[in-house]
């Protein structure tokens, strides 16, 4: 099932594989989407739903599945769900569900802006006796605080079991409700639900694939959770052909989040030191971050963290100074893009580096963001062409239409030319966590340079400038371990001789022992005593011996292909693949065999002793489990990490080793996905009194006006999305004549019904308006767009690809002039996929 994604258009090369599954192996492809796209054209089924109603649809599938005959009689499902998910876990009796509280969960603060987790917690057994009495290491800190094991009811009958809570939560998510809220005919919904159900089990698995069609909502994270829950209930996680595949929005953005260009993460998904939390000292940091996770593989948090700090500062990071923790920057709020632009508008930000980004076009409420740029003292833009962001001060619409004068903009803009993909070396990390090394084919022209060149030399200059400083604020940069000079062979064939060594960077990310600089073969070798360096623990294993970069491997085998690139973690392609075997460690079926327990296999333990029994993986797939842990092994109640986890706990990154149907912590807007209307919607929430996500992030500031619910001025739903022919804001594509002529102008996809109502004619101009701005586009009148009937009322939807800006060979209005600053509360991703607007025929100024 492809939902929240237009895979054929936005991930065309990846789409090759689902298509092969369909043509060569009879796989059924289903596309659930408001629009009929090029993906729908190649799927067996297209199921239309109103934008923003994904949780209703998914919740209804969950409801259908758990009440179905098949799910309740085929023993596979119960075996998987009871043992590998937290379905049997008992939840705090004080927990109140949305069904009890008109659409919110228990724990909502008085002002309705935030939840506290207390009532969502597990019921637990008594705390065990700590394994250590003194604290000598960070690990000892964790060992003293191991909680009692969660209480469970394997019969699932207890009303406080997660299962019963889930069942009650989704009881009203019926096919009729889907028809009412999503506008999707019952039969079409049931077809999808039945297909997924019948195609899951011992012998078959189903996959759910999504992309930013799910993430860009105020309930984005919850939508994805719903899919994960469904797959867990269907027993599809950790098994070949199953799982939830995230198609990420940019090339190597997986690598970008892995190595943490995110404000709130350290590399390897550790949390950023945060001034708002109890992160005063390194010990506090470990206690706050690692204790709740200690009974999972995250129990090794101290080792990951110390190795990271050691990578930053090398010799300057010592036990005495807590490995430099005190000098490490701490965040003090949400510094992601949207609130950053609000701060910028309020004059709090002086300088801005914009590298390969174009907020003047790509930013929500783009007019607001362009005006914010004018408040900066200086801005450095690195890109291949003069982007709209770099040029905003002289020719943005605000300037050309006289709203703002160029001479009033004091921002000094430095435009630096950037190298293109083939002009630099580095590893790419694809959405399936696969690292592939990418060669440099040629030097960039003239002064254009790669981002690592820029960052490295900037760092070198700053280190030199801070060399004599005694200021604590400068310690971090002054003491940076910054040794990435290239070896002569690395630059021999190229003109640019001072390009930093991509190999050295990857080796540091992989990790090595500080003393002898030998690469670490595995994250299991990481230490918390400062003897190991590791930039990002999840990548350890890509370089196991000096000079051998597994990301360069290119041996495919038409299946797992363990010798093609390197998949983190530890070359495991399917995460949680312990779940591909049953409780006894036997494959669920011969057909779906992946990793399984061989009781007779002889292996050596770390001391060199021979022991009997190991997990095996004939395909070469990495085993996402402790290889010598027998299925029958019972974890130690007072252990942490692998010691605590049992032989039937496949989900080793979860503190209880189980897939979470119910999320007791970690998400700020609820333990269970609930249907909330998009923040701007033409209809009331038909399920709950609570209209939209109560804790969605909003910015009620001047210049960011929101529409009312069912605002008669803006009755039409609008969704923004991408085309194959252009990339994001078009900086990489709209300058190329070959691509500019494929999609030359901004257009709006509109149904014939709506077009007729408004007198809009195909290929002529139409205008789209919100409280934030008004744009014009060519009308593309097509039956691929359809009106929805929601509770008897007709709701129209239009679609806008947002690639256009005022520079370049293919030009058009900026679609984001229409959108507003509103975001998911967990990750502050903007709700770009659904908001409201109005349309009319004719150009912006009134002409035809």
């Amino acid at each position, binding site marked *: 099932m492809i939902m929240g994604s237009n895979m054929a258009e936005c991930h065309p090369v990846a789409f090759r594989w689902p298509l092969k599954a369909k043509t060569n192996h009879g796989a059924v492809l289903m596309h659930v989407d408001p629009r009929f796209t090029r993906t729908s054209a190649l799927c067996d089924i*297209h199921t239309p739903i109103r934008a923003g109603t994904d949780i209703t649809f998914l919740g209804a599938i969950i409801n259908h599945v758990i009440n179905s005959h098949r799910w309740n009689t085929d023993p596979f499902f119960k075996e998987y769900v009871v043992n590998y998910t937290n379905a049997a876990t008992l939840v705090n009796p004080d927990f109140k569900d949305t069904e009890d509280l008109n659409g919110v969960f228990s724990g909502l603060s008085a002002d309705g802006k935030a939840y506290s987790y207390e009532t969502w917690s597990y019921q637990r057994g008594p705390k065990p006796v700590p394994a250590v009495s003194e604290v000598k290491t960070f690990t000892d800190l964790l060992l003293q605080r191991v909680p009692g094991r969660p209480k469970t009811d394997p019969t699932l009958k207890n009303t406080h079991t997660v299962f019963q809570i889930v069942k009650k939560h989704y009881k009203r998510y019926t096919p009729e409700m889907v028809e009412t809220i999503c506008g999707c005919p019952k039969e079409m919904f049931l077809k999808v639900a039945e297909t997924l159900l019948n195609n899951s089990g011992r012998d078959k698995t189903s996959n759910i694939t999504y992309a930013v069609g799910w993430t860009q909502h105020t309930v984005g994270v919850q939508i994805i959770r719903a899919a994960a829950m469904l797959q867990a209930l269907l027993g599809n996680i950790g098994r070949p052909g199953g799982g939830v595949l995230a198609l990420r929005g940019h090339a190597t953005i997986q690598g970008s989040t892995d190595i943490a260009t995110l404000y709130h993460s350290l590399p390897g998904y550790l949390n950023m030191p945060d001034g708002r939390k109890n992160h005063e000292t390194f010990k506090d940091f470990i206690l706050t971050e690692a204790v709740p996770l200690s009974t999972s593989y995250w129990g090794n948090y101290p080792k990951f963290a110390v190795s990271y700090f050691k990578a930053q500062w090398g010799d300057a990071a010592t036990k005495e100074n807590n490995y430099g923790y005190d000098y490490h920057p701490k965040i003090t709020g949400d510094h992601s893009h949207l609130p950053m632009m609000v701060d910028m508008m309020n004059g709090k930000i002086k300088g801005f580096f914009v590298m390969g980004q174009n907020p003047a076009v790509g930013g929500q409420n783009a007019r607001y963001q362009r005006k914010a740029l004018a408040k900066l003292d200086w801005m450095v833009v690195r890109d291949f062409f003069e982007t709209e962001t770099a040029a905003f001060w002289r020719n943005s619409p605000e300037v050309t239409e006289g709203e703002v004068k160029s001479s009033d903009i004091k921002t000094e803009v430095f435009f630096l030319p950037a190298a293109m993909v083939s002009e630099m070396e580095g590893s790419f990390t694809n959405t399936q966590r696969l690292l592939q090394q990418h060669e440099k084919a040629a030097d960039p022209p003239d002064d254009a340079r790669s981002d690592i060149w820029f960052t490295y030399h900037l760092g070198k200059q700053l280190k030199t400038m801070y060399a004599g400083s005694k200021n604590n604020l400068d310690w971090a940069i002054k003491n940076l371990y910054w040794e990435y000079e290239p070896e002569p062979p690395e630059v021999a064939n190229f003109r640019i001789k001072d390009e930093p060594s991509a190999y050295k960077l990857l080796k540091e990310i992989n990790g090595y022992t500080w003393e002898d600089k030998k690469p670490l073969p595995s994250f299991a070798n990481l230490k918390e005593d400062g003897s190991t360096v590791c930039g990002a623990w999840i990548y350890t294993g890509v370089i196991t011996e000096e000079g051998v970069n597994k990301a360069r491997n290119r041996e495919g085998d038409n299946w797992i292909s363990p010798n093609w690139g390197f998949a983190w973690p530890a070359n495991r392609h399917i995460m949680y693949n312990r779940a591909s075997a049953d409780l006894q460690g036997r494959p669920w079926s011969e057909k779906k065999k992946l990793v399984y327990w061989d009781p007779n296999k002889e292996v050596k333990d770390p001391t060199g002793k021979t022991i009997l029994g190991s997990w095996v993986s004939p395909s070469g797939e990495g085993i996402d489990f402790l290889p010598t842990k027998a299925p029958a092994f019972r974890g130690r109640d007072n252990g942490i990490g692998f010691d605590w986890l049992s032989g039937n706990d496949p989900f080793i990154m979860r503190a209880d080793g189980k897939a979470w149907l119910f999320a007791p912590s970690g998400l700020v807007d609820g333990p269970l996905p609930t249907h909330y209307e998009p923040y701007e919607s033409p209809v009331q929430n038909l399920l709950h009194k609570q209209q939209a996500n109560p804790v969605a992030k909003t910015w009620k500031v001047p210049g960011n006006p929101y529409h009312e619910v069912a605002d008669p001025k803006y009755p039409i739903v609008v969704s923004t999305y991408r085309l*194959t022919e252009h990339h994001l804001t078009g900086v990489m594509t709209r300058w190329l*004549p070959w691509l500019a002529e494929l999609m030359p102008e901004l257009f709006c996809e509109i149904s014939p019904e709506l077009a007729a109502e408004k007198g809009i004619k195909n290929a002529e101009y139409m205008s789209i308006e919100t409280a934030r701005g008004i744009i014009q586009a060519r009308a593309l009148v097509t039956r691929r767009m359809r009106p929805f009937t929601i509770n008897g009322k007709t709701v129209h939807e239009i679609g806008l690809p947002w690639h256009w800006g005022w520079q370049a060979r293919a030009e058009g209005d900026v679609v984001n002039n229409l959108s507003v600053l509103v975001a998911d509360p967990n990750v502050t991703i903007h709700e770009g996929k659904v908001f409201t607007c109005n349309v009319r025929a004719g150009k912006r100024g009134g002409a035809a």
Partner: protein
Amino acid sequence: MAKGMFVDTSICTGCKACQVACKEWNELPGEPAHFHKVPDRPYQVAINFTGNSYDNTGQLSATDWRHVRFIEQFNENRTEARWYFSSDSCKHCNDAGCLNACPVKAIVRTDMGNVFVQQDVCIGCKYCIPSCPYGVISFSEQSGTVHKCTLCNDRIHNGLGTACAKACPTGSISFGEVEELKKRADARLAQLKMRGFTKANIYGYTEAGSLNVFYLFMDEPSVYGQPEHPVVPQRRLFRSAAITVLTAVAMAVAALISFREQGTKKNGEVKP
């Protein structure tokens, strides 16, 4: 052995990578007719939005050697919902109207069966252009000669396949020996028919002497803008030449009668 391409439109996603790969390999510019000058800009701006689904290319030209067609088939209540894609190009006909028409032997067939325009021979008489039943070959004002897909003549003569087939992400376009491709096409057609796609058909086994670039369509060829039963124009040559000769003979007879020696004239004068 003849080389060609099999275009399986049933797995085309309409991504247009073929169009771009072709331009990239052959170093073709953007189609001049698609751009115009704008004051104050050092570059030309694209103006070719057609409103015809996602097809802004419109037709093949001297600089567009591939053209992806988009065919939407939707009824009012959307119970019928289909969107077909097809990447059109020169078919490299085995009985090629353009080759047959060329008076200077600029258009030739190579040892691999592809039809190729020798740019240094072409005089730009443009007679091949209306002679192609598919409207493929086109004239370039800039070079004064005609251009079309060469089947990547340089690539295929150096052990490589065509650029479009290489770029195609789904394998919809595949390059190889025509006989091998036909086997694959027949198997795919059989598979589709078994799955209930009764309208699926192969286009190119018999048309124009058989096409080295042939298609699997999901509907009638006319839905894809192709002629149902094309007649290569030169097959009609004999008939029109014969009729014309007969007419010449008739005119000769008429002239003989008009200008012959006559006995009497109307006004009574007697001729010697």
